[in-house]
């Protein structure tokens, strides 16, 4: 089902359920996307930036110490978080920004949750010299301040969103409103493999570089160890890192493909962001049909995850369809599981997972224990954890972290007072 560049629908999911005003820009985008994907010159442009700016290929790490400690399947980590700006989000931002330039657009807007997509888009816009506005919920601004700082450093305008739950879905709403009025000169870079078509197809295509590299690196590193790959594991918010990571493997029966959703603090409504395995229901929200966390009336429910990037009530339509067909399995990891996994790999391997990606790491740890030693699991570290410092250090850093923050504030105040005289 992924053999086509443009699918529109994936089983019953997907489509373009938008107010008529957005039909014209989406039709234009579909045409431009198909045209670009058929043009070797466009791919060459993307590849050149991937080499010299993104830092591709990203490495694959054999997590030997972790594997030894767990005593089961061997774990490999695709270090996608080593890409410039710290996450896989840059792949899509580069692709869409180049497409926008090709379409003659002079302004780019984006939504962001964790801030990674916003940072990636702002960075690419700085590089390509395009005006950039990023919509971000006030709750996310508060918990991801470092990313706001970087977006502004890159010259982007960060527009706070104060409506609804003030998180990712509200930022999407606000960006759609902007675009409805601005599409003549503006391209909307959606950050995940969701929204009205052609976005789910487009984002998968731009992220599938992660899966293609993984395929090669499996030959190079995993097969070389005499291991057979049992499963690929990735976290799933909207699902852009997962669908890109899985894309080259979708049409084959193996390995197992496992998506890990945010189990948050429990299965009650509002305490998690897990749409699969019975908690989500089919609906039409934000321009596409998929599985969403909805009330019986169809109102979008609140969600929770310690990781801002997984805190979204809908899942990309292709992953929803793959979940229904059974090709992709789904699991959940809680906030606590993710923090444990983050600590485990940091101590054993010297890498810090982003909180989102740490949900995938938690599942990798769980299944590695159940599998024999001649099998391998590849987990996608879609982002690195630098951006989460203020969350992880609060959770794990204890009183010394608090006193450090206090002393920073004191120093700040002292400088301000001294400088103001």
């Amino acid at each position, binding site marked *: 089902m992924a053999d086509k560049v443009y699918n529109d629908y994936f089983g019953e999911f997907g489509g373009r359920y938008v107010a008529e005003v957005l039909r014209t820009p989406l039709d234009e985008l579909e045409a431009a996307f198909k045209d670009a994907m058929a043009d070797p010159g466009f791919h060459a442009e993307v590849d050149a930036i991937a080499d010299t700016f993104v830092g591709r290929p990203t490495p694959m790490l054999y997590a030997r110490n972790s594997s030894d400690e767990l005593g089961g399947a061997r774990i490999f980590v695709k270090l996608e978080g080593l890409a410039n700006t710290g996450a896989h989000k840059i792949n899509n931002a580069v692709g869409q920004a180049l497409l926008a330039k090709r379409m003659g657009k002079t302004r780019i807007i984006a939504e962001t949750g964790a801030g990674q997509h916003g940072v990636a888009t702002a960075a690419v816009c700085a590089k390509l010299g395009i005006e950039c506005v990023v919509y971000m919920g006030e709750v996310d601004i508060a918990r991801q301040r470092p990313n706001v700082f970087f977006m502004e450093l890159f010259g982007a305008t960060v527009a706070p969103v104060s409506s609804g739950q003030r998180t990712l879905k509200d930022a999407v709403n606000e960006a759609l409103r902007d675009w409805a009025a*601005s599409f003549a000169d503006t391209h909307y870079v959606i950050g995940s493999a969701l929204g009205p078509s052609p976005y789910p197809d487009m984002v998968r295509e731009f992220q599938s570089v992660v899966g293609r590299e993984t395929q090669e690196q499996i030959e190079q590193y995993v097969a070389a160890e005499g291991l057979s790959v049992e499963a690929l594991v990735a976290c799933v918010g909207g699902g852009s890192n997962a669908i890109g990571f899985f894309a080259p493997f979708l049409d084959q029966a193996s390995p197992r493909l496992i998506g890990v959703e945010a189990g948050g603090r429990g299965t009650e409504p509002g305490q998690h962001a897990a749409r699969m395995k019975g908690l989500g229901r*089919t609906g039409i929200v934000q321009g596409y049909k998929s599985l969403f966390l909805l009330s019986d009336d169809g109102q979008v429910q609140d969600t929770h995850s310690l990781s801002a990037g997984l805190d979204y009530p809908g899942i990309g339509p292709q992953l929803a369809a793959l979940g229904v067909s059974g090709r992709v399995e789904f699991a959940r990891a809680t906030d606590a599981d993710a923090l444990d996994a983050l600590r485990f790999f940091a101590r054993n391997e010297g890498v810090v997972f982003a909180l989102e990606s740490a949900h995938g790491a938690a599942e990798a740890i769980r299944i590695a224990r159940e599998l024999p030693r001649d099998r391998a699991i590849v987990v996608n570290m879609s982002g690195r954890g630098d951006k989460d410092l203020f969350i992880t250090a609060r959770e794990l850093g204890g009183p010394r972290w608090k006193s450090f923050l206090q002393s920073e504030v004191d120093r700040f105040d002292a400088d301000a007072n001294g400088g103001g005289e």
Partner: protein
Amino acid sequence: MSRIMAHMVAYYPDRKRSLAVAEGLIDGGASYLEIQFPFSDPTADGPAIQEASERALDAGFTVQSGFDLVREIAALTGSRCGPDGAPPIFLMTYASLVYARGVDRFIADGVDAGAAGFILPDLPFDHDEGAAAAASRHGASVMPVTVTSAPAARLDGLLATDPEYVYVALRRGITGSRTDLDDATLGVLDRIRATGTKVMAGFGVSDRAQVVALEAHAHAVVVGSALVRAVAAVADGPADAIRAAVANRLRELTG
């Protein structure tokens, strides 16, 4: 007096006072009522209607209670005598609410409550999940939405479905920002009108001059955010004050 389709949000500011809004719109001379069922994520609406929707949901709106409210409002409009008769009710909402209840059941319940038709902006006419067919089975219609910037082929496709009404959004963007009318815009209205379809023209209408400019080219003029803002200005006041304020605001527009 100009024909206006007057918009309101069910349960805004709350149940009782939204009934007062409906009464005010009828007092003020509405020819049609557009009653919006609030949705948590109204992407096609601007800040005024989004804030009204949030408050309506906080006030306890449910889809079932919305149908009950429509039934009460339909009873009000049914008792009104006037040259145009009772204003028909069009129920506007987003796909999520319709889909969650089941398209056929939602339409059937709406018709049973007294709706003459439905406006469903994120169910495009060519991917409407069976809404138009369901409406027709139950003796009502879906009023499709188009925009003046739509390519000719798209508009032709819509008109080929032979709708009784078409809602024409007059500008790019969301509800609630002011619209300037130009010859190209009015030309689109005339083109649709020539097919015998009733044109409901709106988006950003907030003063009498716009109504006058539009009414020669449309069956009725749609007023939404301007009325929601009128409610917002007195939203915490008593029901009678809301009813009077809304009626006065609408009279300014109907002339």
